[in-house]
Every structure is written in C-alpha cells, then in structure tokens.
C-alpha cells in the first residue's frame, strides 16, 4: 500500500533506508527541522541545515521515487538559547519560498520552560505572518501532559490560528483527546521505547476514529524504526480493518492536511 510518512528525519538515515522505505510503499514524506543531538553554535549552522532540508534531501529521496517535503524552525531544545533562536527565526523567511517547504516546525516545548514558551510564541507569529502551516512537537514522558496543555493554551488564546492548519505531534493516550477536541490534527509517533507502539496507535484509531489522525515513524538518529508505518498497516490488517480505513490514515489524511500548503504539489503513482 502506498503511504506517507509525515514526520521522519532523513538527514539521520542512510541511503539504504530510502531504498527500504520505497520498497515498503512510502511515496512521500515530510521532514521537520529538529535537534541534531548536540546544540549548534551559530545561526549559520542552521542555514546549512536548512539548505540540506530544502536542497539535498529532496534529491536523495527523488532517486527512490519518494517526494520529500520539509518544515523549518529552531527546535524546542535549542530554543532555550533565546538570542540564537531569534537569529534563526529571522533567517527562516529566506527559505519559505523553497518548493518543498510546508510550514514552520517542529516547534514546541521540551522541558516546558519560560524561554521555550517565548520562542514557541515567536514561531507562531512567524507562521501567522507568512501564512504557514504549523507542526508541533510535544514533550516526552512526565513532561508531555503539562507541555501539551501549555501548547493548547497558547494556540487557543490566539484567534488568528486556524486549528485545521496545525498538526500536534507525538500524542499519546492522555493527550490525544484534548488535541482532537480543539480541532487540531494529531500525529502518533511510533517509537520503540518512548512515544507509541503500532498496537497502541491502532487502539487510539479505534477509540477516536480516523479523522485528523496520522501515524509517523520519526525515524531519526535515536533508537527509532523508519519502517514503523508498515508495521501499523500490518497491525490494522491483522485486526480486520478495511483497506479503505488503513489508506485514510496513512495516505489520505496526510494529503488532506499537507494540501493546505500552497507548496504541496504531490503526484500520485499511476
């Protein structure tokens, strides 16, 4: 089955992974800007990273018939450095006209600090000013509940934000309800240790329905599995779900959300 991976960090993956994903049915992916595993020292590091996301990765993906889209920001972890964050935010508009940029992301919170919240709000201003979609990272483990609620507070306070233009990622059993109730899209990240397993993601689909929900692998430099979406497809088939239901969550929903960006030009396979 053809599918999208709406959140995968291909800069951390080998070319073999592109080949494997193509063979598993991945036809398109979106790659949010994220933490590299170390704190970068200058805005120029981010400039190079944004060139990698907007120039190099689309070419690498295209060699395997995969369409590559991306999101730009300074991530929540490095947002603790407010001065650097503001330099990066000021630079982002240079890249917004690149053909594969869908919006601002993955912004959000990490440890739910004041500085993270300040930079999150400044990213929201950037997205509103440039009419961009927004992709949001929610914190992990014991910080997820508080962080998700803080993010919802900030989003819902701003009446300029259209919930259907925002994807809130890494939802789990205790955060998916509030995200969907407020009209936002929800991403379920399939991850071996933290976040969510394919079985639990299917449990959530069965509990909340298929609207505004999409799974992703977040395949990155940590212990992650870039082929996690085929695992979810397999789990749904095992439980007897129809091919139409599976296709909605792994293919149609991402297309529906991404289509709200003028830069999303997707060519389905014949």
């Amino acid at each position, binding site marked *: 089955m053809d599918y999208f991976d709406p959140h995968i960090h291909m800069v951390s993956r080998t070319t073999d992974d592109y080949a494997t994903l193509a063979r598993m049915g991945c036809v398109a992916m979106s790659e949010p800007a994220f933490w590299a595993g170390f704190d970068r020292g200058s805005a120029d590091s981010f400039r190079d990273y944004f060139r990698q996301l907007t120039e190099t990765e689309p070419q690498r993906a295209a060699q395997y018939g995969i369409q590559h889209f991306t999101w730009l920001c300074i991530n929540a972890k490095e947002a603790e450095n407010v001065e650097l964050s503001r330099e990066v935010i000021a630079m982002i508009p240079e890249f917004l006209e690149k053909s594969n940029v869908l919006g601002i992301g993955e912004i959000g919170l990490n440890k739910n600090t004041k500085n993270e919240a300040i930079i999150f709000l400044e990213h929201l201003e950037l997205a509103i000013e440039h009419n961009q979609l927004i992709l949001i990272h929610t914190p992990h483990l014991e910080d997820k509940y508080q962080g998700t609620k803080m993010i919802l507070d900030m989003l819902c306070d701003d009446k300029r934000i259209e919930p259907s233009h925002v994807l809130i990622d890494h939802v789990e*059993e205790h955060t998916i309800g509030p995200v969907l109730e407020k009209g936002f899209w929800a991403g379920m990240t399939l991850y071996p240790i933290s976040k969510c397993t394919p079985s639990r993601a299917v449990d959530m689909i069965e509990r909340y*329905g298929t609207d505004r929900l999409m799974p992703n692998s977040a395949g990155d430099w940590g212990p992650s599995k870039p082929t996690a979406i085929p695992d979810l497809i397999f789990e749904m088939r095992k439980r007897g779900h129809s091919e139409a239901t599976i296709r909605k969550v792994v293919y149609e929903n991402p297309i529906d959300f991404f289509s709200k960006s003028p830069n999303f030009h997707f060519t389905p396979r014949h």
Partner: protein
Amino acid sequence: MSSKPTPQKSQVSKILEEEYLPLRAKILELGAALDRLELADTNFSKNPKVLQLLQAIKLLIPEGLSEDTNDESSNGKNLPDGKAQARRAEKIQLHFSRIYNESWRKEYDI
C-alpha cells in the same frame, strides 16, 4: 467525525488468543524485574520510583476483582462493564505525568 473503526467481531477472540501469551510473558517480566530490584535495594518498599511503579500496576486491576482467582463469588460477574474500565493506558500515562499547572502563564509572565 468519522465512524470509529472497530475490529471485526470474528477477530476479537483471535486477539485474545494472540495477546494471552505475550501478556503473560510481560507480567512475568514485571514480576522478575521487581524481584531483582527488591533483592538489590534494601529500601525497595520506600523508594518513590518503586512506589510509583507499584501504584501504576494497581491501576491495571479492575475494582471488584477478587485476589483469589478461584473465588467463585467474584467470578467476574460483579465486575463493572469492561468498556468502562478500558482506559488503563490513559490512567497510567496520567499517573506518570506531572500535574498540569494552570497558572503557568502567570508564573512565566507570558
């Protein structure tokens, strides 16, 4: 809102069959890991993280379930409706979460 896709009826007993042994194995792993911790730590029962884990395990057990599985008086018939109980994952997530601080904006002056 879309209709909620549910597993086909014919799949339900199959799911139980498939889940039974893996679940049994996971419960055994839990028991063995807690034994390991207790043997290694003389303050086992006072350790806050251990207590948090043990409290989380209690959230798995439906109210009204007798500890004696051979007790015919319980025998499942007095248990609340299964679907009403089926929020264990959500409860466990909240158990391991920091409590939401509603006044965060005031404290951060944002």
